[in-house]
């Protein structure tokens, strides 16, 4: 839920994050403009595959430039920032989960993922962590596979596969 009451800090200089954002959007816009020309803006039959992206790339570059002008004239209020610990913990654990899911199977990889978030990050008790992790991994696997007919991945390792993981 976004806060509707918190007043961010005001500033007199353009925030580095804002400059990075403007730079990134400009770079994407320029890339799209160049790629679109390569795709072809117009063909003998009419508009080519590059026409619409070209227009959007143009909008992105123009708006980024306008945003920079606005920021230079009147820098926007600084946001509250982010909790890097949360971003790293959640982001990295998700990347690891996605990397090993096909290898270890949904049940084992999700069990370890949930255990990390419940026990190590969340500080829950071993009993509650184990119960929830089991329900969320093995329980969800069977509920989706047999209840909803939606197949979740099984392990690519034969020994794990043989024991139903």
């Amino acid at each position: 839920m976004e806060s509707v009451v918190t007043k961010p800090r005001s500033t007199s200089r353009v925030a580095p994050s804002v400059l990075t954002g403007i730079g990134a959007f400009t770079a994407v816009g320029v890339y799209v403009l160049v790629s679109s020309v390569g795709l072809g803006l117009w063909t003998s039959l009419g508009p080519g595959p590059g026409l619409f992206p070209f227009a959007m790339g143009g909008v992105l570059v123009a708006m980024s430039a306008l945003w920079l002008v606005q920021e230079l004239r009147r820098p926007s209020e600084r946001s509250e920032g982010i909790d890097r610990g949360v971003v790293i913990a959640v982001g990295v654990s998700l990347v690891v989960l996605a990397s090993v899911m096909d290898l270890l199977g949904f049940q084992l990889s999700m069990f370890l993922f949930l255990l990390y978030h419940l026990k190590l990050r969340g500080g829950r008790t071993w009993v509650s962590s184990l119960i929830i992790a089991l329900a969320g991994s093995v329980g969800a696997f069977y509920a989706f596979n047999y209840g909803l007919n939606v197949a979740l991945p099984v392990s690519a390792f034969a020994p794990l596969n043989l024991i139903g993981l």
Partner: protein
Amino acid sequence: MDTLTELLGGFAAAMTWQNLIFAFLGCLLGTIIGVLPGVGPVAGVALLIPLTLNLDPTGSIIMLCAIFYGTQYGGTITSVLLNTPGEASSAITTIDGYAMTKLGRAGAALTLAAVGSFVGGTIATIGLVAAAKPLGELGLLVGPPEFFALMVVGISLLVALAGKSMVKALISGALGLLISMVGIDPVAGAPRFTFGMDRLLDGVSFVAVIVGVFGLSEILSYRKNAETPLVHAPGMRSLLPTRAEWRRSAPAMARGTGVGFGLGLIPGMTGSVSSLLSYAAEKKFSRFRHQLGKGAVEGVAGPETANNAHANAALIPLFTLGIPASPTIAVLMGAFLQQGLTPGPSLFTEHSDIAWAIIASLFIGNLLLLLLNVPLVGLWTSILRVPTPILTALILLFMVIGAYTINFSVFDVFVMIGFGLLGLALRNLDIPLAPMVLTLVLGPLMERSLRESLEISQGDFSVFVNRPISAVLIGLGVLIICSPLLKFRKPKALTEDPEA
């Protein structure tokens, strides 16, 4: 066949036991999403699309619609009991809702909010029934240039109304359109922005993007040590409002219905704007306006009626013209398309039985929510007692399953993670997310209608101004986008809209 006969046919289809179960489950899940602060209706509906993948189109859309309006009911509970809105559209309810809780009238506030939601939702659905045929027939006259112009107006309105800066809203809209263009070009068949990856030839998974941008980015922006709130559910006896409270609420509900229904039809208006303006209407017209802010029933009944009338009225442009009026409706539209149904006038000619079954289910869903919401308030509040780490872990579990099961590929989980980080960056830069989701859904349709129009006119752009309907709509779109140059002032309710 006349409208009534078709509606009755729709009721017959919606009242099969399978579809009733889907509506019930949708209401239940929607209420839970509404109660949970942090999971908004956009991510909530996208997250649960995988649950409906193997259902038939009717059951699937019935369930997702029920989830959608269930969130509107659920958002009220935390506003009243905790002074924390479960959904942005219930933010204004905290003022008088929480004041009523402090006065020991929490039960009455929740009952009046639920009844108001039922009234607003039901009347807006009657509006949908009345408008479906005439607007649908009008929609059939629309050709590619008019359809393109209509989408230009819809997107312009959303861009103009989203957030505080038009520049940032346009960036968000352009990003959404660019993401929608990844994959094989629909006309010439050329791959675009695929970076040589075969997996991107079919485009970027819509569900993975929405779950990432709206859901994961919300979790990534959580702060540590969020405390589990202490909440007490009101007893059954206190749920019944007094006769005076009923009498005072009735005019507020009528005004709320009018405000919500009218604004729900306009693309870009969010439920928050409806509830804010409904509160403003109570401040102006209520006989008891001096009590507003101190626990007046009008401050709960009006806004809560308005946001539900808004939610159901917003389905009218979707069903009749194929234009989503809000980000959540855009996600619903994505679900329609995934089931092979194209919302708009052709829905009533090609899949009339499904369209009417869904409309009938809206009436049933509203009734189910009224029956579920108030008596089960104890159950809903118990969800709030679940510690944050457990909730976060379970939400992440559903996100991973949701992203994976769209194409049964971990690639989409990576897509979700990437877009989660992008969503976090956009939030941090104060760039509104709503235009992005709308253009993401409308992008392919918009491009196709643009290119079809230009093929009809053999490349002559004047096709958009030579046809009267399209000329008026394009003119309107340009006027909306240029409104900052004309120094039009945005109403306060829009600049403070937390949903934008």
